[in-house]
Each structure stands twice: as structure tokens, then as C-alpha cells.
């Protein structure tokens, strides 16, 4: 009788599976006291197209970092003969693949476990001395659509708690890289050791696979990693990975962007620095004038894909262009200088008004200003000497 009930409820057509004795698990809860967490749902702000665009731009697309050497079981290489068109097509495809690798893990609110009872059949109480977990294993469903229900020993039929649901999903539809038991690496003391060894990328990559974005562990661990990075200032490890966006978003949300900003200015990523400030203004509804500067940046910025250009450069090396030679020698283009001019006042404005680490930031901007002025002089001098306008 109760089977029919499940059929009706979950629309299980062909397959259902009962699992006896759902063993209780030992959930590990990290020390959440010191970790910053999202106080309200960050998802609408995160998925906003403008935010996404800013985050993507700040992440940067460095092909050699995305496609760096990894250990894979199959190390075979394909060699092909191609025409120029095919090769260019292949370049475009690899850029597309690189963008896929930069897909940011979702930033969503933490989900709380609540008891959802489907029916209370007291007649069934005592039918067994173990509870039954029934999982819908229909082919082709999404994990969120999959129903997992529990028949308690007292006859209550209810939705399984998140922890059991996750375990059942992993049992029937294993996700490669995820283990049923939480790796001990995520326990407090081991996580601290990994953080001290600065294995940030490894922790984050593993966390993304092991936990779902709405799980509390996902939030606590990621926030711990981000905060640790903020302390050690090793932002460059995450640059051009899928975690840079969420990290930046996290800092902007909690108003602690000063260290990241300093890093960006020091590395001469002035456009990114301006975007970071814009993101902060956007998230906290401060200084509505940030939209102007974003628009201006958009207008100046070259429309073509820089990464694609970089790839194709290897092909067109034969035809030497003086202008490009100068650019590669100095490392900056005319457009870059214009962008710097645009961004610097904006950054200085932020520093004087809102920054917490004013002195440090001011010094950094001053140095970068001087370096850029020198470069600009050199650039113009060489351009003039070569007769390139």
C-alpha cells in the first residue's frame, strides 16, 4: 500500500530503490565564528549581467594558465595537418574552451534543512526496525528534481534530509572526484594546514566537487580560504581561474577590497582596479557615478578578443609591423595609456573617500603613475622616431 503512495507522489515510473538502514553520519561543522558569511541572498546581485561582466573582466583570460599542464591518465597528442582557416577556427574553439573552464561556481544562499512530511501513516508504525530510503533513479533527471524520501520506523513518510539526499545521489549517480565520505582535508585542523601551505587552488577545486554551492560547508570553507588569501595577499594564485570571480564578489560584499585593490594597482591592472571599485559601489549602492566610467572604458576598449589576437600573433609573425613591435617592447598600447588616464582619477577618488588603507594605496598609485609616465614617454619617443603616429 505504501508503495503505491510513493508512486503517486514522486511519479516514479519504472525504478525505485529501497535502501535499508540509513546510517547516521557525523557532519563536521567548521568554526563559523570568525568566518564571514553572506547575511542575505547574494544570488540576484551575483547573477546580475553587469556584475558578471565586471567579474569576468577582472578574472582575465590567461591561456597559458588555464591550459597549464595537468596530470591526466591519457597523455596522447594528436597531430593534424590544417589549412590557415581551419587553424583559426581551432583557435576560436580553444578560446571558447578556455571560457568554459572559467565558469564561475554559483554563489547562492545557504540552504537550511527542514523536515517536510508527506504523510503520517501511524498504521505502519513498527513495520520494520530500520528506516527505508527510497530513491528515484529515473534516467535523465536533474539532481535537484530527483526525489529521495524516507519511511521512518513510526510510519511517517518524509523528504530525506539534505545529507541523506546527497549520499543517495552520489551512490546512484556518482560525480567523478566526489567521495561519499567527506575527505578529512576539510576537517578544521587539516584545512588550516592546507591553508598555511597555500594550496588555495587545490582546496577550492576539491571543495567545488565535494560540496554543492548551497551547502553550509561550501560557504564556510570558501570564506575561510578567501579570508586567508586576503591575509597572505596571494591573489595572483587565483587570477584567471574560476574562483577569482566569487572571491572578488566576496570581498566587495564584505567591503574588504583594499588589499586586492593594492595588488591590482601594484601589478598595473588599473582597469581591473576601477572595475573592482565599481563593483563595490554597485553592491552597496554608493556613488552612482560609477556607471559613467564603465561606459567610457567600454568605449575605449578594443572590441576584438585579446586572447585570440595573442594566439594569431604566432601565425602572422612573418609580416613585421613596427607598431606592434613597439607595443610588445613596452608592453602597453596607446589604448592602455588612455584607459590608465581614465581609471587613475577614479581610483584616487575612491582612495581619498572610502579606502581604509589610504597611505599604502596612495603610495602604490603614485609609483605606478610614475612608471607609466616613463613608459608613455618612451612609447611616444619611439613611435615618433619610427614615424608611426
Amino acid at each position, binding site marked *: 500500500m505504501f508503495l503505491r503512495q510513493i508512486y503517486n507522489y514522486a511519479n516514479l515510473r519504472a525504478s525505485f530503490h529501497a535502501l535499508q538502514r540509513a546510517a547516521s553520519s557525523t557532519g563536521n561543522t567548521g568554526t563559523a565564528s570568525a568566518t564571514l558569511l553572506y547575511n542575505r541572498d547574494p*544570488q*540576484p546581485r551575483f*547573477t546580475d549581467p553587469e556584475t558578471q561582466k565586471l567579474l569576468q573582466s577582472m578574472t582575465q583570460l590567461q591561456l597559458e594558465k588555464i591550459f597549464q599542464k*595537468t*596530470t*591526466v*591518465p591519457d*597523455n596522447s597528442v594528436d597531430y593534424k595537418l590544417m589549412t590557415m582557416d581551419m587553424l583559426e577556427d581551432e583557435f576560436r574553439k580553444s578560446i571558447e574552451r578556455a571560457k*568554459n*573552464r572559467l*565558469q564561475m*561556481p*554559483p554563489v*547562492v544562499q545557504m540552504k537550511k534543512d527542514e523536515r517536510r512530511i508527506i504523510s503520517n501513516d501511524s498504521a505502519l508504525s513498527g513495520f520494520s526496525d530500520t528506516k527505508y530510503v527510497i530513491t528515484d533513479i529515473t534516467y535523465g533527471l*536533474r*539532481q*535537484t528534481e530527483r526525489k529521495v524520501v524516507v519511511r521512518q520506523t513510526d510510519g511517517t513518510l518524509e523528504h530525506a534530509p539534505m545529507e541523506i539526499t546527497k549520499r543517495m545521489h552520489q551512490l546512484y549517480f556518482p*560525480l*567523478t*572526484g566526489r567521495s561519499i565520505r567527506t*575527505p*578529512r*582535508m576539510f576537517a578544521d585542523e*587539516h*584545512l588550516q*594546514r*592546507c591553508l598555511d601551505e597555500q*594550496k588555495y587552488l*587545490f*582546496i577550492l*577545486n*576539491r571543495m*567545488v*566537487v565535494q560540496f554543492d*554551492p*548551497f551547502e553550509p560547508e561550501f560557504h564556510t570553507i570558501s570564506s575561510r580560504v578567501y579570508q586567508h588569501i586576503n591575509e597572505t595577499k596571494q591573489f595572483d594564485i587565483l587570477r584567471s581561474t574560476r574562483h577569482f570571480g566569487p572571491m572578488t564578489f566576496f570581498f566587495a560584499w564584505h567591503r574588504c577590497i583594499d588589499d586586492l585593490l593594492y595588488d591590482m594597482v601594484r601589478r598595473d591592472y588599473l582597469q581591473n582596479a576601477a572595475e573592482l571599485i565599481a563593483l563595490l559601489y554597485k553592491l552597496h549602492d554608493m556613488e552612482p557615478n560609477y556607471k559613467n566610467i564603465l561606459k567610457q572604458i567600454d568605449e575605449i576598449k578594443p572590441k576584438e578578443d585579446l586572447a585570440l589576437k595573442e594566439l594569431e600573433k604566432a601565425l602572422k609573425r612573418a609580416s613585421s609591423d613596427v607598431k606592434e613591435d613597439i607595443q610588445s617592447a613596452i608592453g602597453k598600447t596607446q589604448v592602455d595609456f588612455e584607459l590608465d588616464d581614465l581609471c587613475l582619477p577614479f581610483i584616487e577618488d575612491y582612495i581619498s573617500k572610502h579606502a581604509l588603507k589610504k597611505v599604502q594605496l596612495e603610495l602604490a598609485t603614485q609609483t605606478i603613475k610614475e612608471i607609466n609616465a616613463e613608459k608613455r614617454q618612451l612609447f611616444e619617443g619611439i613611435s615618433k622616431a619610427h614615424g608611426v603616429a
Partner: protein
Amino acid sequence: MITILRAISRNLINEKFSVVNRVCFPQQLTYFHSGATLRCDVKPEENVNSSESNNLTADEIKKRQNDRTQVIPVETSMRYLKSSAYKETYGDQLVWEQYRRNHKGAIPPRKTRKTCIRKGVISTGNPCPICRDEYLVLDHRNIDLLQQFISPHTGQILSYSKTGLCQKKHFQLTVAVERARDYGLITFDVPFREFDLDEYYGKAEVKKE
């Protein structure tokens, strides 16, 4: 092959393994670090009588060197791998690199031997790279050692047909590596997880449309 081993162990013989604050005395050629020789130096009175220990019969010396009943702590092994004694024994090479299996005929048997140590004694003339050196302890904390058995190209554990480990030690190796990965002591490339964003943002996008 044997001459190379001899050369290595000759270096070894002149070495004082200061890591454990004990002195390693020359006993016989072609032996790696074994606890038996060290243990006799723990007690001072035996240390004094070291000249006497040289007078032991060949059988007794062999017995001592083949003894594997003493358990070496992992911490000692970890220090050993960083010590100059280790450096002189193996140089820049991996622990298993110079090891060659003994077998009759041209084709080696598929599997290596089951174990090199039986009843606490080395029961073979050509123990595997881990068994021959008593100070190599397989444990998840001993990362320097485990890394030598992981391929830098595939990230997988090297086969015993390459490393020559006996079956017992190879099993212990897989357990240690798995544990080290669990604890996050060894980093590896985590498979990429592609998110179906609609699954997480679904509702919000429906609203926009």
C-alpha cells in the same frame, strides 16, 4: 648492476647517520641502512665493544642485518629522507630507480614477489626498494617518499612492474597514497566540474524572461 650497488653502499659505509644520533659502523658491503647495526650502538657498553662486534661470525652479522622486527617511527623516516645519509645513498635518484629484479630467463614474472620479509626477517637475497632500506617507512605523512612513486605525467601510482616493489609493500603504498590524498597532504588535479547554472539560478532567469 651489482657493482653500482656496491659503490653506493660503499659510500654508505663511511657515513654516520646522524639523524638518529647513532653511529653506523661498517659491517659488510652491499647493505642499505638497517636498524640492526644501529641498534647495537644504542647501548653504550655495546658501543665500546664495537671492535668485538666486528669479530662476530659472518652468520651472526647477516642475521642482524636481515632482522626487521624493530619498528622505525615515521618521523625518523621523514628526517632520514632529508638527511645527508640518504643523499649519499641514493644521490638525486629515486629510491627504486637503481633497483633491478632477479629472475631467470629474459621475461620477468608478471607479479613481483608476495613479500620480502617473513617472520620479521628478510627472506630473500634481493629485497625490494622499500624492504631493503629499513628507514623507508610507508605512511601518509611521509610525502617525500610517496611522491617518488607517483607519476608526474599521469598522477597515478607507478606500477610494481616499474618500481619492483613486492606485493605487500605495493599495497601499503596504495593505502598510504590514498590516505595522503584524503588528508590533503598530496595535491592532485581535481576533475573539472561543470555546473548546470539553470539548476541553481533557474528561478531568477524565469523571472527575467
